[in-house]
């Protein structure tokens, strides 16, 4: 069961502005019945002031899709076209008091229908689908859309992209491609991570924290993947004492494991680190 806010339930059970405006000045249709959700947005716009006088919607979809559409029409009424374009998918979700992560794509559908409607109003040609590179073939999601949604919503993981666009959510074969796109998107904008190097003079507390961090993040998951494990028993100056656990206890490769842990710690914490087993 989804954890919907009262606002979502309210707009789902009593949606506002349902229907289709006749002789609409702008029509935006997004999604299709096969993929599980679709939204048709129609707007009446005052040509002199560019102000949206009326907005109506028809939605095929789940509760959050219906609520997102209903809220969108509320947000649009009275705004100028330029003001309307400032409404982001996050604004739609916020107005609803938030949406479950997995349902964020419903708010994105609202934003997309809005863009499509305004493009229609301005007489801008739709981007021809075949010119876009489709990344997710199951849900017909283009690379352009993934990049756009990632930047607008600060998304950094494939899972987040799936929640917001559905891409990668069915057969999953495009997930590595999405990962590559995300790397590309964020490598430009993310400041390079400061690399903890041996050059830094660490306090004892920092050193202990760093050793714990390396063991937890890098060493233990690898050992656990093979059924083994280690425990950090003590740190005495530069001496790191660990105990083998699980499959590692009886593993004949124990010495090699110890050596590789030491190498990793030397690299990250400092050359002077020595690792021994108790």
């Amino acid at each position, binding site marked *: 069961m*989804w954890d919907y806010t009262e606002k979502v*339930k309210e707009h*789902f*059970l009593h*949606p506002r502005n*349902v229907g*289709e405006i006749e002789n609409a000045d702008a029509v935006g*249709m997004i999604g*299709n*019945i*096969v*993929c*599980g*959700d*679709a*939204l*048709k947005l129609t707007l009446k716009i005052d040509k002199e002031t560019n102000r949206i006088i009326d907005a109506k919607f*028809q*939605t*095929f*979809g*789940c*509760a959050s*899709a*219906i609520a997102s559409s209903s809220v969108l029409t509320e947000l649009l009424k009275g705004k100028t076209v330029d003001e309307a374009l400032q409404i982001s998918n996050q604004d739609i979700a916020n107005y609803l008091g938030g949406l479950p992560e997995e349902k964020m794509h419903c708010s994105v559908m609202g934003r997309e229908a809005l863009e499509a409607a305004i493009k229609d109003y301005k007489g801008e040609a739709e981007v021809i*689908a075949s010119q876009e590179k*489709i990344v997710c*073939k*199951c*849900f*017909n999601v283009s690379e352009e859309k993934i990049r756009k949604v990632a930047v607008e919503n600060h998304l950094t993981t494939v899972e987040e992209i*799936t929640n917001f666009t*559905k891409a990668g*959510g*069915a057969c999953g074969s495009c997930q590595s491609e999405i990962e590559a796109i995300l790397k590309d998107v964020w490598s430009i904008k993310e400041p390079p991570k400061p690399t903890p190097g041996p050059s830094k003079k660490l306090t004892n507390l920092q050193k202990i924290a760093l050793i714990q961090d390396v063991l937890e993040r890098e060493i233990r998951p690898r050992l656990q993947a093979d059924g083994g494990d280690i425990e950090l028993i003590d740190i005495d100056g530069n001496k790191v004492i660990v105990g083998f656990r699980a499959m590692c206890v009886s593993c004949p490769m124990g010495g090699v494991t110890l050596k590789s842990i030491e190498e990793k710690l030397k690299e990250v914490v400092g050359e002077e680190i020595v690792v021994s087993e108790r």
Partner: protein
Amino acid sequence: MKTLYFDNNATTQVAPEVLEEMLPYFCEYYGNPSSMHFFGGQLHRKVEEARARVASLIGAEPEEIIFTSCGTESDNTALMSAVETNPTKKHIITTKVEHPAVLNFCKHLARKGYRVTFLPVDTQGRLDKEALFRALDEDTAVVSIMYANNETGVIFPIAEIGQILRERKVVSHTDAVQAVGKIPIRVKDLSVDILTLSGHKLHAPKGIGALYVRKGTRFYPYIIGGHQERGRRAGTENVAFIVGLGKACELAEQHLQQETEYLSRLRDKLEKGLLETCPDVSVNGDTAYRLPNTTNVSFEFVEGEAILLRLDEYGICASSGSACTSGSLEPSHVLRAMGVRNTAIHGSVRFSLSRYNKESEIDQVIAVMPSIIKDLRSLSPFGRNQLTPNRCPASS
């Protein structure tokens, strides 16, 4: 608000008689059946009584029953045992419409190097037997086919298949979680080697299941440790829940015939009522060979989650094969395997009944459904007059 519960293929209410029988085994008789002292040892008899009750429901011998923690454990154990005891054979046959407990375990084995054939079903959800016989070869270690499908209720011809598999000396397993307690099952007539059943689908609590392993079938345990269940399933016996499962099976056996008739009458009334009062509705699955308690109906042009949440406003509980309710973004793998139109899958709703449903509850569903569907359709940009694509533009 009163709850009108029509989701009994998901889980069932624990029968009050079952709970009553279980209660003394928490605080009063809490011993370990393996103990040497009388206090613990006396429970052994109670566990064996439950085993006999489970066996009786499916026409098995008590020593052919192993208690497990759930249906999933039983399914995993059955498949693992079959491949462990046939180490030279690397082929597994199952269907596209199995429960994830079988489906995903087979996919797991496929990643380990096994060859897995997923058999198709036809548009009515019926198994393609010819495809099964074509897929069988010398390398086949196990064939695992569900007794009845959880989403549509369609019953597979397990007896017929079992006969052939026995002749071919292939281990046969059936996931009968949805069937046991709802329709008569006599394992002697089935020729299956291993059968899965689960407590919480037949008014026992969640967290207890069982496995029937035909005498003479080679077996290898999945959970390894102590000597419990004659070394076939380690772990201290979950006495209270085993007692509960035993009682639930006894109740099911006592009331089986009468319940089958009662449930199918109610189900048919519900189905007929929905078909008559709502336009553009169809039934998914073969209605001739079907569990008496299950109906799966598709409401075109509307989405399942929206239907369920509107029903929820009336306290009515059902489930859907729509993508939005599946936890993944893909709609029901069962309805897709049947080739049901995507538009109909998204609007599918399953009602599954139990002995606790009343006829007046059926009337209530029939009374509220037309306005819910009409409402949601008025919201929908699609309808009978619009051209709706039948395939996703990009996928096929």
